[in-house]
């Protein structure tokens, strides 16, 4: 309804403007100055309306403005109207109505200045004075906007063509703009007091829309060539700030502070930082300083990092910001504020929302300040501590002191430092502020080393947080360290870091119960923690191992559900360290300069691995078994370099794997996999064992294989075990291999009784026979193969009948292989005696169906 009405009003006014502009331009074409002025005046009269909204008025203003440019052009072309500018300037003042009179005056005035027939400063002053005649806020604002728009390139600015003894200097240009700024600001501020109280909200909205007309004056000021840093600091800014303060209006102060930051250069801001920040501290409490200060910090951070030399001598940017921000923090907690202006939420001091004091605005400001500080002073750990200190002060005032009874505040205390769960402030931080604190704690780790954790305020800040948030901080810290690639290269720092991330490392008093934990989320957190192990780096193996031990001790307190995640990578990392230590031992022994023998010897690391794996036996036996075997392989490698020294260790690890198998593996699949792993390791990667030890282990494993629950598993395990007696050339025993194969065949025979599905076993056994035959195990003869093939053929036929296709396929593949061997030139002598034809017929017969 309102909008339609507005649209109609605008359309009507537009129509008049178009018509009058048409006549005006025609009069211009005919060089008829009288008619041109008359129609221009009629056109401008449309701007006398009080009915249009600011946006629609602006629309109309733009149309009039655009048309008046034609008139201005005409005035400038003196030969076309052959009037003296002073005459023209006089004559337009006879227009009957004030608004058209002043618009025309300005239009002529601008051309008058351009003609240089009179001093610029006088004309400017005159027009500025005359504009006071319009006191209606919106009309007045637009009129002054027109004045500065028309005159901005005709000011006696430094270096301008209008600058002269007579025409004036930058001071006059400045006075002109400042006066218009002041007048505009007052007109603007006055809107709130005009009209009835019930329309206040609409007026405030309109005022908000009109603000660019005020800000534009500041833009013009900033564009003055004569606006040097000195002029800005000594003359311009004090006057602007004075005007801002005198408005006593939230919206005006908020907007003008924002504009000042945006339109003036960074050099100017650096020069006047104290002045500006002090002014910020004096604005109305309802002004939201956060966006203003954040913008200022952002601009300065960008500028100073690109131009480090631009900071004037003696200006301590950090100190200035800190002093003023602390002033905000130290303000008394206010009583609930009166209704604030729309869009403005106060952060000027901690705010009281209902009964709950909300420090979130100030906390966000601290985060911005921290980011700013880290950009400008990437090395200053002490600055970070100061900022965190201020934050602790802020929170203490609301939540009580962090150093409650029974809480160690010493950051080096191993147990208590990260544990915010005990003691401390009575209430914990909730709500929006939490994210800010998380950021405050995690951000410094992006660029600073872990040594910042030594600072007390780190610990103190943690104490304001509940478990969930402390965990959030911990995850952020871990992620930040990992993402930034911050090396964990100092045992004390690692110690401290682990104590900070305690919520991830172990259960605390306020940890949620197991059943409340989301399993996937928990696993993903633990995986993040695991990656820390790989961030541990140092040239000195002793240091690395010390840090592993620290991590291991921390992980050890995590209980089984964490250890299954955290211990395996710890073992893996320790094993990877072993070659480095061995090299160091060798180097030290051979007297290479600068190489000291390691304090943490190989034996100690192996003990560490042994203990850690043992810890896993009960909670993750399969993993423990695998790790024992990996350790055995590593010991074997060490033994290869230093023969005999590591055989007992290697033997012990394989034995432990076997013990783990015997005592903890109960699931038949896991058992089968266990056998495979043990056989694989022992047969192919372990070479150092004493013959007796090897034989004991091999026999034990084979026995376990034969004792598996399911026949097919037994059969396949024994087949695999055959390698224990073959692969290791020192312990090769062809007879035992044959025995294994025969045993497997016996088991298969039994298995097939229970289910024809196990036919596949026969083909697998056949393949194994062929393998060993080709490997030249002389106990395996071609007649074994021949017999076995007949047996397979027979069994496969049964399988065909049960429409199982797999066994036939596998058998045919083997058959084809052998055929190829026989057919190749020269034929493989090994297979000369093998008669395949006998089988072929039935194979063919039976193969059709497949």
């Amino acid at each position, binding site marked *: 309804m309102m909008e339609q009405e507005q649209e109609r009003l605008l359309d009507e006014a537009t*129509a008049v403007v*178009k*018509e009058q502009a*048409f*006549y005006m*331009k*025609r009069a*211009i*074409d*005919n060089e008829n100055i009288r008619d041109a002025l008359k129609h221009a005046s009629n056109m401008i009269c449309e701007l006398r309306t009080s009915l249009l909204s*600011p*946006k629609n008025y*602006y*629309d109309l*203003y*733009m*149309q009039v403005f*655009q048309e008046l*440019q*034609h008139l201005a*052009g005409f005035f400038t*072309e003196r030969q*076309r109207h052959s009037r003296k500018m002073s005459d023209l300037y006089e004559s337009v003042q006879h227009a009957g109505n004030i608004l058209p009179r002043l618009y025309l005056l300005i239009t002529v005035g601008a051309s008058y200045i351009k003609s240089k027939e009179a001093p610029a400063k006088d004309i400017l002053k005159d027009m500025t004075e005359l504009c006071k005649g319009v006191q209606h806020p919106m009309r007045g604002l637009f009129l002054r906007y027109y004045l500065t*728009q028309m005159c*901005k*390139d005709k000011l006696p600015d430094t270096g301008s063509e209008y600058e002269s003894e007579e025409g004036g200097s930058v001071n006059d240009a400045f006075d002109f703009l400042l006066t218009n700024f002041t007048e505009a600001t007052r007109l603007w501020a006055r809107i709130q007091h005009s009209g009835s109280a019930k329309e206040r909200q609409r007026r405030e909205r309109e005022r*908000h*829309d*009109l*603000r*660019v*007309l005020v*800000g*534009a004056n*500041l*833009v013009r000021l*900033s*564009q003055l060539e004569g606006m040097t840093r000195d002029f800005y600091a000594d003359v311009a800014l004090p006057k602007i700030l004075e005007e801002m303060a005198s408005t006593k209006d939230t919206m005006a102060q908020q907007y003008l502070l924002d*504009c000042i930051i*945006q*339109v*003036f*250069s*960074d*050099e100017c801001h650096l020069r006047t930082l104290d002045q500006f920040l002090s002014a910020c501290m004096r604005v109305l409490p309802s002004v939201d300083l956060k966006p203003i200060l954040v913008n200022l910090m952002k*601009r300065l951070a960008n*500028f100073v990092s690109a131009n480090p030399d631009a900071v004037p001598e003696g200006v301590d940017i950090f100190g200035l910001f800190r002093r003023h921000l602390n002033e905000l923090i130290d303000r008394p907690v206010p009583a609930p504020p009166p209704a604030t202006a729309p869009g403005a939420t106060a952060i000027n001091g901690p705010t009281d929302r209902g009964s709950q004091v909300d420090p979130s605005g100030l906390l966000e400001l601290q985060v911005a300040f921290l980011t700013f500080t880290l950009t400008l002073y990437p090395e200053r750990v002490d600055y970070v501590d100061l900022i965190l200190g201020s934050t602790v002060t802020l929170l203490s005032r609301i939540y009580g002191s962090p150093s409650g009874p029974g809480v160690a505040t010493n950051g080096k205390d191993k147990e208590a430092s990260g544990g915010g769960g005990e003691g401390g402030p009575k209430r914990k931080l909730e709500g929006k502020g939490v994210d800010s604190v998380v950021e405050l704690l995690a951000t410094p780790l992006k660029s600073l080393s872990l040594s910042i954790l030594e600072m007390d305020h780190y610990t103190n800040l943690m104490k304001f947080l509940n478990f969930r948030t402390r965990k959030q901080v911990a995850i952020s810290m871990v992620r930040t360290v990992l993402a930034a690639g911050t090396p964990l290269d100092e045992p004390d720092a690692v110690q401290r870091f682990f104590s900070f991330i305690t919520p991830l490392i172990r259960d605390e008093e306020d940890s949620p119960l197991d059943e409340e934990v989301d399993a996937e989320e928990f696993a993903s957190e633990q995986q993040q923690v695991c990656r820390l192990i790989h961030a541990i780096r140092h040239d000195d193996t002793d240091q690395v191992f010390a840090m592993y031990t620290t991590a291991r001790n921390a992980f050890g307190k995590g209980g089984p559900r964490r250890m299954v995640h955290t211990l395996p990578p710890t073992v893996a990392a320790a094993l990877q360290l072993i070659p480095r230590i061995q090299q160091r031992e060798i180097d030290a022994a051979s007297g290479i300069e600068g190489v000291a023998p390691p304090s943490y010897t190989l034996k100690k690391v192996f003990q560490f691995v042994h203990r850690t794996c043992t810890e896993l036996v009960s909670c993750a036996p399969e993993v423990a078994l695998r790790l024992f075997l990996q350790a055995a392989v590593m010991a074997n490698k060490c033994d290869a370099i230093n023969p005999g020294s590591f055989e007992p260790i290697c033997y012990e690890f394989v034995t432990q794997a076997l013990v783990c198998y015997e005592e903890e593996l109960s699931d038949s699949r896991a058992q089968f996999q266990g056998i495979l792993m043990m056989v694989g390791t022992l047969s192919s990667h372990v070479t150092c064992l004493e013959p007796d030890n090897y034989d004991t282990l091999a026999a034990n494993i084979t026995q376990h294989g034969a004792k598996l629950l399911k026949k097919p598993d037994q059969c396949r395990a024994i087949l695999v075990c055959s390698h224990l007696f073959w692969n290791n050339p020192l312990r090769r025993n062809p007879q035992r291999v044959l025995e294994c194969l025969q045993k497997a065949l016996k088991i298969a025979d039994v298995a097939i009784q229970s289910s024809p599905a196990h036919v596949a076993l026969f083909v697998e056994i056949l393949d194994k026979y062929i393998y060993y035959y080709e490997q030249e195990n002389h106990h395996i003869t071609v007649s074994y193969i021949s017999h076995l093939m007949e047996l397979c053929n027979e069994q496969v036929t049964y399988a065909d009948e049960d429409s199982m296709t797999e066994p036939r396929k596998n058998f045919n593949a083997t058959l084809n292989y052998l055929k190829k061997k026989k057919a190749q030139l020269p034929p493989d002598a090994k297979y000369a005696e093998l008669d395949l034809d006998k089988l072929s017929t039935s194979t063919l017969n039976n193969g059709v169906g497949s």
Partner: protein
Amino acid sequence: MASRKRVLLKVIILGDSGVGKTSLMNQYVNKKFTNQYKATIGADFLTKEVMIDDKLVTLQIWDTAGQERFQSLGVAFYRGADCCVLVFDLTNPKSFENLDSWREEFLVQACPRDPDNFPFVVLGNKLDAEGQRKVSHARASTWCKTKCSIPFFETSAKTAENVEDAFTEIARRALKQEHTDDQIYLPETLTLNANQPTVQQPTGGCC
């Protein structure tokens, strides 16, 4: 025959905050450049008289605020534009990606009579920072081709490279547009009055 003595061409410069709209305008009109960043509030213009193909034209170049909060009165100044210049920063891909929405916004707000053939010119600014370039020439010119072959210039407001050429092209396009788009306005009422000279049929700028 009476034709208007002056041709006034209106050009609007649009683009994200910080791409160098004000700097380009200042370089072209005042031959000045400053590294200082100062935001623009609302919209402001500079004028420059140039000869385009033997014709003297006044270019009214409107520089606009890239930050929305400094545009609280709306964008009535788009109206009546003869050419729209879309500026992006060659070192800032986001500013390039936003060209589409600037173009859309202009067409919606300015309502040119023939939006499909309204002249745009695209400027990729900060050519002096070639080392930090993030938008390739190929990528930008491909985009321009898909939008009815908008002319594309890579410019530097700092070194003035290509600035003159770009604005000459802008002025030429604007002039062509002014010819086709010149509104033929007929007043609803004609006052026939003895004092008035003979009523002439209003004409376009050039016949």
